[in-house]
């Protein structure tokens, strides 16, 4: 009887171990698949040609597979979105965490949650019909589908996550810190900016890095407003991101061609960017735990 119970126990232990390792398995699966399907094209094209080639013309007789425009567009687009989204999100978070009356805080937080939950294609839809024509009219350019439109849409998309994570970090600052500063004669606003924010700086850094990850990985909203031509990045020109390069050509490409393999290689490059961002994120999370 006891033996049987023991056998069951160890079987159950084994089952749970397997379930626990599923996440690890999934990460390995994704990495291995991307590496296996991404390497052949890079090998054939040549790493420097692939990464630093300025021209992408996959269907021409003499096909060119240079993804520098995509890489730079993704970097500029993400940087722009974070540059706009961070200050707005950050100041909103400080206000909500420290100044807003509870009812208003609850209301605005719910609004921000709604913003976070809206599918990105909805942002793309509004961007396509409101933002793109607006950019054309305001800046008197021939066409509004551009890097600028993508940056604005992306900054709206990263905003809720920046607000939420900074808010959590600011709320976690011990009351004693602030009280000490107030007692020393600082006004409340000064206290928030001199004491609370530095104390929450790792949390805020986490928020920004999360925003970067979210922006660089966004595909559907961006494809709807950015025009999708493989130009070198320019604020008012139509551009193509790493994500949109993959999604716009993937559905029509013929299976097994160098073109398709090159699209997998782009996904691999995107994946490496994400891993880099994850590592940065972990660095800040660790620091937060220690600090």
């Amino acid at each position, binding site marked *: 009887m006891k033996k049987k119970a023991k056998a*069951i126990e160890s079987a159950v232990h084994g089952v749970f171990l397997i379930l626990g390792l599923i996440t690890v398995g999934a990460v390995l699966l994704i990495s291995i698949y991307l590496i296996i399907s991404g390497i052949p094209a890079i090998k054939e094209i040549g790493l420097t040609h692939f990464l630093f080639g300025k021209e992408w013309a996959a269907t021409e007789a003499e096909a060119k597979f240079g993804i520098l425009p995509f890489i730079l567009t993704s970097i500029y687009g993400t940087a722009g979105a974070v540059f706009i989204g961070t200050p707005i999100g950050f100041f909103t978070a400080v206000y909500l965490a420290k100044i807003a009356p509870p009812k208003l805080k609850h209301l605005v937080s719910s609004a921000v949650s709604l913003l976070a939950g809206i599918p990105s294609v909805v942002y793309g839809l509004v961007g396509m019909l409101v933002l793109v024509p607006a950019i054309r009219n305001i800046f008197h350019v021939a066409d509004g589908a551009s890097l600028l439109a993508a940056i604005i849409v992306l900054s709206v998309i990263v905003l809720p996550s920046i607000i939420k994570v900074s808010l959590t970090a600011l709320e976690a600052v011990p009351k004693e810190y602030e009280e000490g500063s107030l007692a020393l004669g600082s006004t409340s606003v000064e206290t928030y900016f001199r004491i609370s924010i530095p104390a929450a700086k790792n949390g805020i850094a986490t928020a920004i890095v999360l925003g970067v990850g979210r922006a660089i990985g966004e595909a559907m909203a961006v494809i709807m407003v950015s025009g999708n031509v493989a130009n070198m990045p320019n604020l008012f020109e139509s551009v193509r991101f790493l994500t949109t390069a993959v999604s716009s050509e993937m559905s029509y490409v013929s299976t097994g061609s160098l073109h398709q393999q090159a699209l997998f290689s782009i996904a691999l490059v995107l994946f490496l960017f994400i891993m880099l961002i994850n590592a940065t994120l972990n660095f800040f999370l660790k620091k937060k735990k220690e600090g």
Partner: protein
Amino acid sequence: MVIGKVSKKRKVNIGAMKALMYASVFVTCALVVFLVGYILVKGFPNISWKLISTKPSYLSGDIGILPDILNTLYIILATLLVVLPLSVGAAVYLTEYAKNQKIVSAIEYAAETLSGIPSIIYGLVGMLFFCQFLNMKTSLLAGAMTLVIMNLPIVMRTTQESLKTVPQSYREGAFGLGAGKWRVIRTVVLPECVDGVVTGCILSVGRILGESAALLFTAGFAHTLNGVLKALTSSGATLTVSLYVYAKEQGEFEVAFAIAAILMILTLIVNLFADFAAWYFKRRKNI
């Protein structure tokens, strides 16, 4: 220094900071009001019973989104059915079994990584692995499996958090009565983590509702009306995917806005549910 006698320079600084805060809050709120208002105003007039109760027809040119609504339901159910046992199991392993710190941190790092991977990459790998390697073809099932991997870390995290709050004394008490580990988990630990599981489910539903990039290549974008089993094995668009298809591929903006309004309302409902669940479980724990 006495409060009230603040130098001019400091006053200017304080004023500037305040102005920036108010401006930011205003921008955020204005954005929400504009987006919600714009979508509801554009979308509501186009929602009709006919739209949500029929399937599209090429012959008459009518558009109906019933298949998309059903597909969304099916894919949510299929995903939750698979993701629940997997992620709860993983969370139980982490909190109840794992002693090796290396394995724990490997699992947690993996979960962290999974939640950072963009959905377009899930879509690609899902297409390669589920559709091609496992030969599921482009189907709702392949889409659901892809979503399972995406949502694993979410449900695992919330379950884990709630397992951690189960008092150690419960377990010790049960062990003291001579119960085996599996029995303790089954009868004492698992019933206590319902809140985490429910919260995780709500979050997952929200994520699935909003997902498009991962489904485009795995679940496809057909609008055929099928029974649940047939639907799982054939290609089908969820609401979000069909919004993309109607807006981008077909230029049917009335339909797109109607779907956007529906999605927005669903998002609101999901958020309310999440709030309610948080409030309900907090109250129950406090008693």
